[in-house]
């Protein structure tokens, strides 16, 4: 099969022998960047949507599907832009997801579990790995940030909810507590005292959610998907204006 000149040129570039550039530079970049990427994604999640991610009983049907996808897609979107621009890798969102999950898991284990002694089945973190893979897949197929922001963000929010509903489902089973039918997650929230959080049910699931035929969670999910589109463009701004734009300015003086 004939190989075009562009392919040959790229192959030559790929296989070029350098004097001082070896794989260590790649390794150092990908590993050390994971620390700052994971931390940025984790702090964005914690301070924008943390309460809804810390506790099983806060993983509700009204706010959790809206604010969490918005918060966690931001840094993923930024890395998607950076990695696509630098290497044409459709991996930025997944890279962020894995880095954030490791950071969050260490935090939950060492600080929430081993320090304050909450059981991990009460304070487990949501994951965005599956959702991120889909968002990266959309970028791979469309090669367009506009289309990824629309299709990918919607897919991201829906996949995020489905993939986290699986670990959450056991805690939504009905149980009897003081002659009342509540969920297992509700009992966790009552039994494990959090003296600095709002009184139980004052904020979580207020309104008519429990008398609305269970439809509100789907309304929240769709709204969450639209909000995630906005979050995606916040991430694009971060990447374009704060990470990449300085390189262009630098090159002008080179």
């Amino acid at each position, binding site marked *: 099969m004939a190989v075009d000149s562009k392919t040959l040129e790229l192959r030559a570039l790929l296989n070029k022998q350098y004097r001082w550039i070896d794989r260590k530079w790649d390794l150092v970049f990908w590993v050390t960047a994971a620390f700052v990427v994971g931390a940025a994604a984790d702090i964005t999640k914690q301070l924008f949507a943390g309460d809804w991610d810390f506790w099983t009983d806060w993983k509700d049907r009204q706010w959790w599907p809206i604010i969490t996808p918005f918060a966690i897609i931001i840094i993923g979107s930024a890395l998607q832009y950076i990695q696509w621009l630098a290497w044409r890798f459709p991996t930025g969102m997944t890279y962020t997801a894995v880095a954030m999950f490791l950071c969050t898991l260490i935090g939950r284990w060492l600080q929430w579990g081993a320090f304050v002694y909450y059981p991990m089945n009460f304070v487990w973190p949501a994951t965005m790995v599956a959702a991120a893979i889909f968002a990266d897949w959309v970028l791979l197929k469309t090669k367009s940030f506009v289309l990824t922001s629309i299709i990918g963000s919607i897919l991201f929010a829906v996949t995020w909810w489905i993939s986290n509903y699986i670990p959450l489902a056991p805690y939504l089973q009905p149980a009897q507590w003081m002659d009342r039918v509540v969920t297992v997650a509700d009992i966790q929230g009552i039994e494990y005292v959090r003296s600095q959080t*709002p009184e139980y049910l004052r904020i979580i699931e207020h309104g008519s959610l429990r008398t609305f035929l269970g439809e509100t969670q789907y309304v929240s999910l769709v709204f969450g998907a639209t909000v995630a589109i906005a979050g995606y463009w916040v991430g694009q701004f971060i990447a374009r204006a704060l*990470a990449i734009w300085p390189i262009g300015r*630098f090159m002008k003086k080179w």
Partner: protein
Amino acid sequence: MTDVATPTAERPTADEPEWKPGRGPIDWMGGWRVLWFGSLAFLALAAAIRIFQQFTAWTVGIDASSRDFGLYYRSLFIAEVIGVTAGTLIWWGYLVRKGRTVVAKESSHPEEVRRIAVFWGLIGITCVILYIMASFWPNQDGSWHQTAVRDTALTPSHIPMFFLFFPLGITLTVGTYLYGRYWLPKVYGAEKGFPWSFFFLIAASVTEMAQVAMNEWGHSLWITEEIFAVPFHWPFVFYGWLASGIFALWAETIIRLLQIEGEIEAEAGQPAEEVA
């Protein structure tokens, strides 16, 4: 790119020492040594404080008026502030004083490559510091403050986070710039002006530290104490995003690395071997 062995050709000039085996510019225990030792040192420091908390936080760390709190935690706070201030001034002072002599000398290609590896090591350490200050301690801060009633701004979780690792963020970002300015003058020399990449990164570390004041004021309001995702916490996120400038640092120095490769090719009079 393909993996290459430690170079044997293009040794340093006679006035510069030749490196020992395994200590070359791009060997793990050569140019990359700073990355290993620095990152592990700060991770070990965070781990040591975390172990200390395990035995003291819930016994003597919950009553700021007690004698034991003063003995264990207020003294830790004072030691941190003095230590990080002194360490920062000594390191920055060294970088400026030594740097003024270093910048005046022309460096060989291997030496410049080694300095870029050290620079990347400093960036790596900064990444580790940012992880500790933006994920490791905030998780503890969340667990502590949603659980325990706060009676002071100097809580066991705040003391290492706000008053040790937040300042260390400034120490590392400014120190990395000083290293770049004096040790890598062809990239960050004074005549090139102050790069936006460092402006954003240093701004992130400085504004995070400044935000601590607003944070403590905000926590003096009762209702904001209850929610971790409360709006007055959001500036920590906005300022943290400025640290994205760190990606530009990697790009800017890899440009110089590629330029060095080009200069080596030009000196040799032929392009480097290409494998199609």
